[in-house]
């Protein structure tokens, strides 16, 4: 089984609440769920829609073919009817799209009789649960968790009324509910909190705001100072101050905000203060598509910041990956005293997906902070020359008689300004030595599909889901196909790629950008050239079925 529901309407019509209730009800019924929102940069009006797909098997992507269109207005019917599968139905209010072939229900009238016209979407939810033959109690349970008092009562009544409106079309068996449902932004936030992040700051910017919101919501409970900064210039500088003083610190934004952080990123490289920064990408340049998706910032993030200094970049592939990698990012940042940059995008950030519950016992907190043993000379040297370029780090205020001086000027081992050519060369070498360590640190990309594929896909980050679904489908057709999906992407791990290149007849680069940024990076780092590129830069994410079709064209 594999069903998909599209709900569409204007911003402000309550479709987010509807989607949340439906997603949770489906999850509580034991299904795998993948939900993707397509929304405009406005608070009211326009046309927004959400795909909610569910199955008894794991899902990695949304589906652009749907079984039900739940239309909150006429426009939804007009725009999306072509997406209906053969047996698909439109469910809508009696007074919407009257002349169209649809299941017309008294949604609004019923809601009004309950004295709350906004709950007509909950009436629809009841009808949809009944359509699939799902137990009413699952929906009731979710509503009980989500609402209180009068709002709870009116929603329960709306759900029950809707449930009574339809006959069962299917009789789906519920399964054991052993999963969580979470999006990429929440995965990042939860990973940061688990890793002991005590400082997070940011300026609201779609689609990164969800991380700021999530961490702020748990700030008091978990003891995390969250600051809404005046601008992103302040953000990274502030995070660096917090980290210098000894707490795990993070900031995040989307591309435009990250642009403003670039000066301070260079500072992080120079002063060797660990920090984690996330860029939840959206299509640029400039304001671009504020609410849509792209992987256009890879090259930018590799090179952001004046001067030469080491950094590590991790692309996040799923909410689960976001959780574990974000936590790992803090360890690497502190081990090497560098900025670790995370890359997500609107698609990963906003898509609600079921995942196996995260295992917090797998999170290790490794801080690499020294005590008195770091004072080998009379005075502590913040930038002591060492074999691997990493100087022992102590925290200001912790060792009487010792001070910690960090400096954005070129500096000597104590952190004092220097003009010396000799020290300059040694300091540059010291900082860049850490990059050699990072090359050992990076994890090879995930390999999906055949172990020695004739057709090898290369991709990164959030395209993982669509790539995985497309590969599995093509494999079933007997095609020799596999994919490398990069998570750690700078320094670029190339061993697995080198192993597979000789047996691969075709190398197909799949990215959500216009210039094939991973492709060019692979050429540069591994001297391997792809044979085909499948690029998408319309601001909309690949679905598994769309990518399948595009892969068929080149296979």
């Amino acid at each position, binding site marked *: 089984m594999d069903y998909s529901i599209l709900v569409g309407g204007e911003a402000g019509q309550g479709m987010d609440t509807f989607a949340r209730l439906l997603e949770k009800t489906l999850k509580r019924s034991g299904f795998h769920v993948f939900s993707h929102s397509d929304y405009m940069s406005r608070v009211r009006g326009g046309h927004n829609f959400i795909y909610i797909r569910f199955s008894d098997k794991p899902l990695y992507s949304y589906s652009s073919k749907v079984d039900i269109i739940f239309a909150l207005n006429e426009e939804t019917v007009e725009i999306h009817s072509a997406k209906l599968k053969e047996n698909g139905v439109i469910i809508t209010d009696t007074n919407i799209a009257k002349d169209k072939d649809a299941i017309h229900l008294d949604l609004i009238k019923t809601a009004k009789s309950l004295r709350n016209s906004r709950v007509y979407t909950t009436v629809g939810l009841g009808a949809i649960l009944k359509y699939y033959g799902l137990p009413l109690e699952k929906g009731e349970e979710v509503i009980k968790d989500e609402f209180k008092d009068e709002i709870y009562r009116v929603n329960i009544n709306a759900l029950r009324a809707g449930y009574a409106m339809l006959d069962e079309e299917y009789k789906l068996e519920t399964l054991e509910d052993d999963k969580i449902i979470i999006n990429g932004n929440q995965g990042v936030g939860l990973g940061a909190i688990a890793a002991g992040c005590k*400082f997070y700051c940011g300026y609201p910017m779609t689609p990164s705001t969800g991380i700021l919101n999530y961490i702020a919501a748990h700030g008091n409970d978990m003891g995390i100072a969250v600051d809404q900064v005046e601008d992103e210039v*302040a953000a990274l500088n502030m995070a660096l*101050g917090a980290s210098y003083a000894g707490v795990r610190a993070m900031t995040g934004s989307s591309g435009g905000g990250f642009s403003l952080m670039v000066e301070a990123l260079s500072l992080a490289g120079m002063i060797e203060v660990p920090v984690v920064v996330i860029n939840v990408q959206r299509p640029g340049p400039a304001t671009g598509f504020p609410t849509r998706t792209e992987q256009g910032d890879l090259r930018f993030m590799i090179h952001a910041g004046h001067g030469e200094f080491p950094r590590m970049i991790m692309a996040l592939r799923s909410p689960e990956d976001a959780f574990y990698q974000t*936590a790992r990012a803090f360890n690497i940042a502190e081990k090497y005293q560098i900025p670790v940059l995370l890359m997500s995008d609107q698609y990963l950030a906003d898509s609600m997906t079921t995942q196996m519950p995260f295992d917090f016992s797998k999170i290790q907190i490794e801080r690499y902070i020294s005590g008195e043993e770091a004072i080998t000379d009379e005075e502590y040297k913040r930038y002591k020359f060492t074999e691997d370029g990493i100087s022992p780090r102590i925290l200001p205020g912790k060792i009487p008689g010792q001070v910690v001086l960090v400096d954005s000027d070129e500096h000597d081992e104590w952190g*004092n300004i220097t003009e010396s050519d000799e020290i300059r060369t040694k300091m540059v070498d010291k900082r860049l030595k850490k990059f050699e360590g990072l090359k050992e640190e990076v994890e090879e990309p995930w390999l999906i599909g055949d172990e020695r594929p004739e057709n090898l896909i290369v991709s990164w980050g959030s395209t993982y889901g669509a790539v995985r679904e497309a590969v599995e489908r093509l494999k079933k057709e007997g095609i020799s196909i596999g994919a490398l999906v990069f998570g750690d992407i700078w320094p670029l791990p190339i061993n697995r790629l080198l192993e597979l290149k000789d047996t691969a007849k075709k190398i197909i680069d799949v990215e959500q950008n216009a210039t094939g940024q991973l492709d060019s990076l692979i050429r540069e780092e591994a001297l391997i050239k792809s044979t085909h590129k499948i690029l998408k830069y319309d601001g909309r994410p690949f679905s598994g079925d769309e990518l399948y079709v595009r892969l068929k064209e080149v296979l």
Partner: protein
Amino acid sequence: MKYEYELYEPSWCPGCGNYMIRTALKQALEELELEPHEVVIASGIGQAAKMPHYIKVNGFNGLHGRALPPAIGIKLANKNLKVIVESGDGDTYGEGGNHFIHTIRRNIDIAHFVHDNQIYGLTKGQASPTTAMGQKTTLQFDGVKMEPVQPLALALTMGAGFVARGFSGDIPHLVEIMKEAINYKGYALVDIFQPCVVWNKVNTFAWYKERVYHLPEDYDYTNREEAFKKAMEFGDKIPIGILYKVEKETYEDKFDFIKNGPPLVDRELDPMDAEKLLEEFI
């Protein structure tokens, strides 16, 4: 005196006001019996911002205009550190203007000493945000065409709880202001006049000396309107001293878990503490 602060050889020009400011700072820290490891100086870039290199304390010498954001991060991370910001007029009121405004709004416990010589020194004599309109400089050949920033009035408008002005040529007076500012619970702005002996031929030592006067003994520094008047007095006579000082809740104290617990830097970290957060995703 508990501790004598070590000083290092500065690269300031002979006769620079920064020397006197450093002398006052050293004396203030010693008289307050603070040890170097308990103090952090955050600074930006400019001649003033070199301070953490010339006196032995913890130092975060960051980017031009960006001295305040790291100072905020430091204070939130470890409330036990005494955080001082040393920066110039260009650093604070020009490149860092936005941070200046919003740091005042936060009222975080930082003492901010602005070395105000009304000119750009390190970049060789261009106008700063506090250079007088019409003053000719190495860049503004026919005179500055913009109104100068009035930092004290601006700080008062934004709701600062501690606003003062000092003069590098009056060290005993400056030491007292600095001590008050460091002890003040909240954001304390001290704009300190200093001559730039190389680039500012208008606002010289003599120029300041002729104009500055101590606020009278009976001056009521809790009266905001009076403080505004004094802040705008910038002609033949310019008052120095604490123009305004009132108690206000600090930014860090508005976080209950910071106020009522150990510094964030001292908290035990355990990933399992966060496991309960999975609840909302079930």
